[in-house]
């Protein structure tokens, strides 16, 4: 390459900045056993959603919309009205008429021209004897290497890590004899060895060699990372965790260096030097393509917004007509606090209906504000039980009578289990295993296969109970006394007071207060944690609910609370519960500790819960293909429990599919509405919120979590190939818990499987940006937006719609950049 081929370098845009820019755009993905929802656009929320959609399309061909034909179909069916379209047009300040918009929507746009990589140039001249595209070869090589670098679970003989991700790659690639390089192996090995030894120097070296102008580097790096999106997201997760712990992690930079180095290796191996000038010109077209796409997307955004308006219209209308059905003066028999999860909405409504509002329900983040990790007895495996945005401060263990004996027994059982898996998994013993005990797997095969047909539905085994005897498991409970670091009484009182304040539950306690976490039941499901409680780090809410109940039942804590002005009557008792979202069974914990005086209360509550479970199951039956059992509660319950235990079931439940709104208001505002399990509900009364501290908390934490969930479902639906994990029947778990491949290999897959979104006939999730409805004064909300960049970005850049509910139930929509408009007028044509 001659010096003139390299364009003059601008001093202001350093390569390191471009690397930082590209790497910080990558959103993390959590491991499968903690599979919480992530907004895959999270790295871009500092920019307007429209420009990001165009940018991603130009960078990597990312799709942000459902096909226009589908929106038009919705218009034809009346699900989107002309009024909705008109409102969308007006909000956008568009000069188009509704008919003009519909006419334009008839044309499906041409697919975007994504950034050309050197790999693409190589693929344009693929030889006849090269069956696979170079793009696939490169991604496969990187993916396999990265997997073996991070895996410490599936493989028992693992890649030594001491040279780092990039360093081991460079060393191993030089010894690789399997790659179909054109110039031969020795030549290739020489070129690999000639690469600089560290990731940053290699990046600098390669971009200089390729002659990429500094101003094009960030986009180029972004396009490269998009080809290994899954592993980039995994590296981003490592970085996220390191930063939560106060450290840092640069694996994503090493991954970029590897992907970039491949570009140079292909140039050298294929002799593509003379094609580089033309390729660089293509790189320069990126900005033009982004501009072009922005204008192409105008129609799509109008249709998208119209669909969102169509949903929000009903909610706005309903909130306004909220009649005070609940007699506020009548004290409830039971207060039940549920997670904000959309699946709670159905059960809450059913429970209120079944009890004729003798049960008053509230919504709160399902980890109940406890910053804990859970350490199962006899183990050292701490599992975070809080949202991914936070780091656990306390590791809580379990206790029971003879705890040390139980712990030792479990350690023994687990050690035996480990020996077994070694016997089954080691190269030198697996043959003997098969010929001595392999036949026993036939028993397992039959038992599992028949599990769904046997009379009593076998519940799938739970990992957290592994190695415990049933009678020990039932006696164990998470305990504040088994916590590290030790939790002093003062700290316990502070925790309890803080949680009760955020819940808005500081007076008028009922005789029973139910704290309901949630979890799911499914068998043989790599993404099972994705159906559990996201606020509990992808675990069930059991530990948190029981810990909070234990805290609030502690007389010493109550004394401390009283001193802080929170009087809990002696007749009030807190009961922890777990809502199984797959079967809609509710399990109560530690009820044997309730005094006899509350036996009747408990009995009544159990009857209401049973009735509510029946009603909720009946409501869900049709969506699970069990519509014909709707009127037969027992048969339906049985069918759902069997389904949950079925190892072949790829759709145990619909999770949070359909989620579309988040209402932050007292329950009375929504009590009269059937929200169809599509709305997150957080109880909040601004009148009792001192200094709006709780409002600030809700908008900065639960709202962000709901945004993550909402956009995970959105992205997995509109572009499952890039932001979803594809077909579940092909899933192949990588590294024990790291993630899945779809099939044999390829990149690590992130996001949701098709089966979580689509029933084989139609999509079960309607991709709509979240409508957040907050009942609070405008000034208070504006103030939080003003002070918190993250909230400001989400609201002002169009990642969600923010509404304010005023005292008479009227909604006002927040205008981009500030100001509120009356929603009913804004939505009117």
């Amino acid at each position, binding site marked *: 390459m001659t010096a003139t081929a390299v364009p003059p370098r601008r001093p202001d845009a350093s390569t390191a900045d471009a690397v930082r820019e590209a790497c910080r755009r990558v959103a993390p993905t959590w491991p499968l056993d903690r599979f919480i929802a992530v907004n895959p656009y999270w790295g871009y929320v500092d920019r307007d959603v429209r420009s990001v959609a165009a940018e991603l399309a130009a960078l990597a061909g990312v799709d942000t919309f459902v*096909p226009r034909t*589908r929106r038009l*179909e919705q218009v034809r069916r009346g699900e989107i009205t002309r009024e909705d379209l008109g409102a969308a047009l007006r909000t956008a300040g568009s000069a188009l008429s509704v008919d003009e918009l519909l006419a334009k929507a008839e044309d499906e746009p041409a697919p975007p021209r994504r950034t050309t990589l050197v790999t693409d140039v190589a693929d344009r001249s693929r030889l*006849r*004897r090269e069956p*696979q*595209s170079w793009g*696939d070869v490169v991604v496969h090589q990187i993916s*396999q290497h990265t997997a073996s670098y991070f895996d410490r679970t599936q*493989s028992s003989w*693992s890649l*030594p890590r*001491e040279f780092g991700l990039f360093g081991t790659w460079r060393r191993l690639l030089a010894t*690789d*004899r*399997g790659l179909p390089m054109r110039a031969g192996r020795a030549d290739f090995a020489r070129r690999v060895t000639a690469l600089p030894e560290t990731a940053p120097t290699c990046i600098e070296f390669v971009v200089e060699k390729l002659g990429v102008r500094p101003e094009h580097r960030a986009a180029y790096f972004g396009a490269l990372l998009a080809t290994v999106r899954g592993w980039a997201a995994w590296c981003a997760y490592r970085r996220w965790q390191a930063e939560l712990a106060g450290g840092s992690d640069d694996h994503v930079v090493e991954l970029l260096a590897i992907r970039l180095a491949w570009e140079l290796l292909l140039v050298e191996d294929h002799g593509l030097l003379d094609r580089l000038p033309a390729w660089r010109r293509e790189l320069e077209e990126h900005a033009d393509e982004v501009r072009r796409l922005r204008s192409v997307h105008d129609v799509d955004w109008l249709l998208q917004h119209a669909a969102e308006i169509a949903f929000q219209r009903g909610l706005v209308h309903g909130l306004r007509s909220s009649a005070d059905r609940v007699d506020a003066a009548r004290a409830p028999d039971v207060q039940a606090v549920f997670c904000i999860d959309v699946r709670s909405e159905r059960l809450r409504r059913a429970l209120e209906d079944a009890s004729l509002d003798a049960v008053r329900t509230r919504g709160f983040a399902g980890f109940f504000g406890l910053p804990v990790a859970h350490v199962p007895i006899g*183990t050292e495996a701490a599992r975070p039980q809080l949202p991914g945005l936070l780091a656990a401060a306390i590791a809580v263990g379990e206790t029971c009578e003879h705890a040390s004996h139980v712990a030792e027994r479990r350690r*023994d059982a687990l050690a*035996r289990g*480990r*020996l077994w*898996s070694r*016997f089954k998994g*080691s*190269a030198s*013993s*697996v*043959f*003997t*295993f*098969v*010929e001595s005990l*392999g*036949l026993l*797997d036939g028993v397992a*095969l039959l038992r599992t*296969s028949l599990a769904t047909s046997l009379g009593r539905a076998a519940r799938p085994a739970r990992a957290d109970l*592994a190695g415990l005897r049933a009678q020990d498991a039932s006696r164990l409970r998470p305990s504040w006394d088994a916590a590290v670091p030790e939790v002093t009484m003062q700290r316990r009182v502070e925790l309890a007071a803080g949680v009760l304040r955020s819940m808005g539950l500081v007076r008028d306690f009922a005789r029973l207060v139910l704290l309901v976490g949630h979890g799911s039941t499914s068998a043989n499901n790599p993404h*099972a944690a994705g159906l559990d409680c996201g606020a509990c780090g992808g675990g069930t809410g059991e530990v948190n609910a029981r810990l909070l109940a234990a805290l609030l039942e502690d007389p010493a804590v109550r004394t401390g609370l009283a001193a802080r002005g929170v009087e809990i009557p002696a007749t009030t008792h807190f009961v922890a519960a777990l809502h199984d979202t797959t079967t809609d069974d509710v399990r109560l914990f530690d009820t044997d500790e309730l005094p006899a005086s509350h036996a009747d209360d408990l009995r009544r509550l159990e009857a209401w819960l049973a009735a509510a479970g029946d009603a909720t199951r009946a409501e869900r039956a049709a969506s699970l293909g069990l519509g014909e059992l709707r009127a037969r509660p027992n048969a339906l319950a049985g069918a759902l429990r069997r389904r949950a235990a079925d*190892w*072949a*079931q*790829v*759709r145990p439940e619909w999770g949070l599919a359909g989620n579309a709104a988040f209402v932050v208001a007292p329950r009375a505002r929504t009590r009269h509405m059937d929200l169809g399990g599509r709305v997150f509900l957080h109880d909040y009364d601004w009148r009792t919120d001192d200094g709006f501290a709780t409002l600030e908390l809700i908008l900065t934490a639960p709202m962000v979590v709901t945004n993550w969930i909402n956009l995970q479902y959105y992205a997995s639906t*509109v572009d499952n190939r890039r932001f979803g994990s*594809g*077909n579940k*029947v*092909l899933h*192949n*778990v990588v590294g*024990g818990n790291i993630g899945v*491949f779809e*099939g*044999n*290999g390829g990149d690590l897959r992130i996001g949701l499987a098709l089966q979580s979104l*689509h029933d*084989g*006939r*139609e999509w079960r999730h309607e991709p709509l940006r979240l409508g957040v409805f907050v009942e609070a004064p405008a000034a208070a909300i504006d103030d939080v937006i003003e002070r918190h960049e993250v909230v400001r970005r989400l609201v002002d850049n169009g990642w969600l719609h923010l509404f304010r509910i005023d005292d008479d139930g009227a909604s006002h929509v927040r205008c981009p950049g500030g100001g509120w408009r009356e929603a009913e007028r804004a939505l009117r044509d």
Partner: protein
Amino acid sequence: MPHDLSDPAALRALLAHAVPAVLALGALLAPLPALRVEAVWRAACATVRLALVAAVGSAVAAVAEPGGGGAAASARPVVLVLVALVGWVLARYSRTYLEGEPGQHRFVRWLLGALAGASLVVATDDLLVLALAWIATSLALQNLLVFYRDRPNAQMAAHKKFLASRLADVCVLTAVALLYSTFGTRSVGELAELAAASHALAPAAQVAVTLVAVAVLLKSAQLPVHGWLIQVMEAPTPVSALLHAGVINLGGFVLIRLGELVSATPAAQVLLVVVGGLTAVIAGLVTTTRISVKVALAWSTCAQMGFMAMQCGLGLYEMALLHLVAHSLYKAHAFLAAGGTVQRSVVGAMSPQAPTRSTTSRVLVALASLAAVFVATHLAGVPVLERPALAAMSVVVALAVTPFLGGAADGAGRLARWSGPAIAFAVVVLYFALHHVLEAWLGTAPSRVPTPTDTALAAFVAGAFVLLFAVQTYVASRGSERPARLLYAWVYGGLFLDERFTRLTLRVWPVRISSEGSSIPNLRHDTTR
């Protein structure tokens, strides 16, 4: 076929042939295009249920009245029940698993078709029918492997498999012709009796048996033609389970059926032991470096098939049969339950870490185990000293149970410390007890004294497993040193055998595979899905 059902042999044959007949009929009729998917599955499940009943019936008849037809004739009803059972489990599983997938009619047709072929291979006594059924099974399976036609890797793997399988077909058909021209019969039972009666096989027959061995090695994905087996995870999980539990082991079954002939053909024995043994050891090691569960299972199958072929070469047909059956059940379960990997990894993370043991202690434990197993088996009357093949197996078993013997050194709890050796003891007893019982039942005890070839092959096997153990011990203690890293690179790359074979394949028969293929329903064609 005589239809006098009072004749137990006729009843047995009728019931056995009813299994492929029912399945074939189901394959033709169940997926009628006019039927709705639910009805297709109802018909498919009824078919496999009926087939299972017939298979169990034939097994009961066989137990009630054992017939002749070669030493390993009793293997037939056992394997028939196995195939039917696997088919029954798979049909039930797939019915739920594939809900909403396009192409379920096609899936049912080829699933039942492959099962019909596999069960006919087992049920028939006619060598030509066996060969044709074997080919048909492979073709039916081919259709399942490319169930998602647009997935590029599925096409590539299927392409390689097609080549290997057709080569195997040529071998098998040639072998059938040679055997028929030599012995004048196509009956496997008669062939076995003729072979047992004769002192030495005619050269043509030896060539035929060697060709069968080659075909088995090709069809059971032995190195270096294993690549297709590893790369067929591009089809739904039950297809993998079918392949690994119901189809790939047919090669082993054929070897067991032709046991008398194989034992009389040194070339075939050497081929089976050397290729099978090396595959078992190498693929076994490669398995431990895999990073995804299904690919690890596939490499493990490759190794297991090698071990089974090796045992056939050693004349241990009863152990090969046990291996075939147990491996099928184990692998079917492992594939179908592969989604539970995450949960198992959580349990693994909760389990106490196994302490690293020194090389010396590992070697000492292994030596002690070897000594103990030899002394114990000898005292128990197992002819380990007279039969080199059994001695080789004793080495394998003794090295296998060493993880259980390090309990005291592991510092595990009181219970684990004592249960380890107890488990090891139980495993050894069970192993040789199963061998004893099966050998007596199948009548596969060797009728001749070991030849020098037998001894050499047994020594080879023992040596290979000692080497495997040594490599593992070395890696466990010196994993980060340079030689170990280099070894890792080679083993991780599967010795790069498949890539070489692929390049060769493509030179012989090029294929062009479109990129960016995917099974994901395109949102753009949403309404048609």
